């Protein structure tokens, strides 16, 4: 079995956001493997830990620095990595079409992709990749087991959750709750340096949308903070809520 896990590199959530010349400037931001993608790497490793003969390939599309995120996936336990180098931002549809080529080339059976991309706040890649491949998708997946020729998953719907069965090959988008991703150990970080990382130009199809401007999102709040007598403060909040029509 071959499992592909899609990796994205995002700025650490704690980074302060500024806008400079219409671009997002992240002062002193550390670039990390997107937390949502870690669940996919971990799930692939667990499938192998359970005794299945599986090769795990981490794939990313992004600028050169993305290799660091791939190294993290390798240190967690992925077997090898592929980086499609693209300096410009691409929309999820273009990324999906290019990744679909890699999936077909690798003849993968199962593809993991994070449910939502932290920096671009986009949930489109999983569904777009399934569409580009013509494969079934389990999105927002919180549990997964293999069963004869397919998988059984739990996934969160808009309200409540559902149990799904789908045949392989398939795309699974992951989220918190699926598992507890492991931390890379020092020996594994050392070992990861020797694992194969193939780098090639992305040469992706054109994006069908383009970002032309960025502004900081600000919302004016009343910012009335009350301290002191609990009953008095509660009375104030009650009035505020009642004025809001509650």
């Amino acid at each position: 079995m071959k499992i592909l896990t899609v990796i994205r590199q995002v700025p650490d959530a704690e980074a302060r956001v500024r806008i400079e010349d219409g671009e997002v400037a992240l002062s002193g931001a550390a670039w990390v493997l997107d937390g949502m993608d870690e669940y996919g790497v971990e799930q692939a490793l667990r499938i192998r830990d359970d005794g299945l003969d599986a090769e795990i390939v981490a794939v990313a599309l992004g600028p050169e620095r993305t290799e660091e995120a791939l190294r993290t996936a390798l240190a967690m336990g992925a077997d090898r990595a592929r980086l499609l180098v693209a300096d410009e931002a691409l929309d999820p549809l273009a990324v999906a079409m290019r990744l679909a080529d890699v999936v077909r080339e690798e003849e993968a059976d199962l593809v993991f992709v994070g449910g939502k991309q932290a920096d671009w706040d986009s949930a489109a890649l999983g569904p777009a990749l399934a569409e580009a491949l013509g494969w079934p998708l389990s999105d927002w997946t919180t549990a997964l087991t293999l069963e004869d020729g397919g998988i059984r998953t739990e996934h969160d719907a808009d309200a409540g959750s559902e149990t799904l069965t789908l045949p392989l090959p398939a795309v699974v988008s992951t989220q918190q709750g699926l598992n507890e991703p492991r931390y890379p150990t020092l020996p594994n970080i050392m070992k990861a340096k020797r694992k194969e990382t193939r780098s090639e130009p992305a040469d992706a199809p054109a994006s069908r949308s383009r970002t032309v401007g960025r502004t900081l999102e600000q919302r004016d709040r009343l910012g009335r903070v009350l301290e002191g007598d609990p009953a008095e403060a509660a009375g104030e909040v009650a009035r505020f809520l009642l004025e809001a029509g509650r």
Partner: protein
Amino acid sequence: MSAPVLVWIESSADAPTRASLQAVGAARALAERAGAQVEAVAAGAEAAQAAAAYVPVVHQVDLPQDNQETRTRALVAALEASGARALLLAGTRTSQAVAPRVALRVGGALLEDVTALEADADGVRGWRLTQLQRVSEEIVAEATPIVATVKIGSYEPAEPNGNGEVRPLEVAFEPEDARVAVQAGGRPAGAKLALEEAEVVVAAGRGVGSADAVAELVEPLAARLGGAIGATRAVVDAGWRPYEEQIGQTGKTVAPEVYVALGISGAVQHLSGMSRSRRIVAINRDADAPIFKHCDVGVVGDVHEIVPALLAALGTATTDPAGAAVQVRRAELADLDGVAALEAHFPSDRLSRRQLRHLLTRAHAQAWVAEEGGRIVGDAIVLFRRGFDAARLYSLVVAPETRGHGVGAALLRAAERGASERGCVSVRLEVREDNDAARRLYLRHGYDVVGRVDVYYRDGADALRMSKRLRGDAPRLAGVPFVAQTLPFTCGPACLMMAMRAFGDAPWSDRAEELALWRDATTVYLAAGHGGCSPHGLAVAALRRGHRVEVLARDPAVPFLDSVRDPVKKAVIELAHDEFSAELKRAGVPVRVGPFGLPAIEEALAAGAVPILLVSGYRLYAEKVPHWVVVTGTDDEHVYVHDPFVPEGAERADGVHLPLARSAFERVATFGKARHRYVVVIGPPRETRHRDDAQVPAR
């Protein structure tokens, strides 16, 4: 006219969801700029019909199974059929997965989770939030059609504006659309409001302390505010709340009217899921918590102290934005003018002064008024039914200028309190399906949609039937179809029809069936007028129609004999009874004579039979007649019955699963001074009947 703007309608109970109506709002704004028309796509006839109130054209698709792949295929077909150059969807999880698929399949551009959309000569552009909702990016679409998901809470929900045309759209589905199968075993969505749809969200952070504290503090506050419960990742990780309630980067994104953050510090990941809420209230012990930089009103304090104080403060008064007190009180006859003036705000089915006067003074109605500065700004009228613990919210109106001030909620709470104090366990109501504000008020207050009535109002509008359990869990009740009696003396036949239909007997002609059963079962005479049906007579009628049946009688007397004095009538009643008894005996129908009570009825219910019970008409309707009802279930407090008699001014739904207090059973389930008690237990058709039927030669 240029190409239409298409919008996908997600429905709940066949009504468009609030998120979908927001997408309609976005579509209207976009279409107006382009001089185009908005068209909708909806799945199923009912949902399409409901959507037609908002757009001139609805493409009705029928999904063989509802999943992302069938929705994708239907939307691609609708784009082709309509020639639309833009498709908008609500920013729900499901639609956010469908949108990229559609965009890819049609070679279009994806604008994901946009807060605004604009069209100009250069094309369509949208704004979306990135970097954990801290940056707004302006995106230009560079392909058509445009497929956009509209971020929940970014547009006002559209108001209905007409009655559009529904056009069925044939979609060629493929077998592969069914590859993903939904299995049993998921968590159901439940009757609760979806988190994203809620106008108020009360969210718990780690500072609340424990799962028990969430139940003690967060749940009551959410209930009081008519809101949904949310949680931070820490709370979900700790197992205090389920994943589906998680708000933030890895959970859901909400933008309610009011967000109450309890014990939440305000990490960026959480803020990204709620920062677009209209008003934010935060309570946290740590004065340095980042949440206080993002709130409208914050309280530095212990949630365990502040929340109970807040609940107490909320319980005492209702105010409107001008600060004038709104008081809710029982209505008096002196309020008649004010109440009558409010009727003008109903689009149809207004009550006359005479009707209102009657309702204000009736013992079995409770009217409430909301007063503001000496003026009546709203009223609620609740009807009760003698002998039963069920209430019906008959009417609720709020003056338009005070809407949104919480007057409706205050009236509703008063009405429920009044009903509870009278011992009622449930409230039911009808609401115009096109009255979104009222429907949402009831949903927020825990009412469930239990049915839909076509052309309910005199102007032809449809109604949703909703009900709420005021206390305790809803009992398990037998699924017995309701039949109303059409004549004063046919309660027995109507009950028998309900029982037989519960076993799948096909209805043939209501009136003819009712009369045929009556002819089989009647005692010919009763005190006055036509005869009623005796237990033995009903058993004979059931027997002749192939059903298993059993009679329980507390005493061996001839039923209803003591209700007449005329010796001729007595002789006839006796003769009829002897004939019934003989026929039952020949067929081996058990007639058990001896004392019995509720346990015998519960035993019959448990065995899957339908008990028909004789009750005192005097207790229920102040008329000294025997009356038959069908028992549909029991719980610790009540016996539930279908009463075939629909009093004037009431409707069929008023007769369904009526709760009769167990404590009243002894009094009500008897007839006459001698306290006769009868139950006819109807069972399924006897097997031989089917064989007999099979031997009937075809005509």
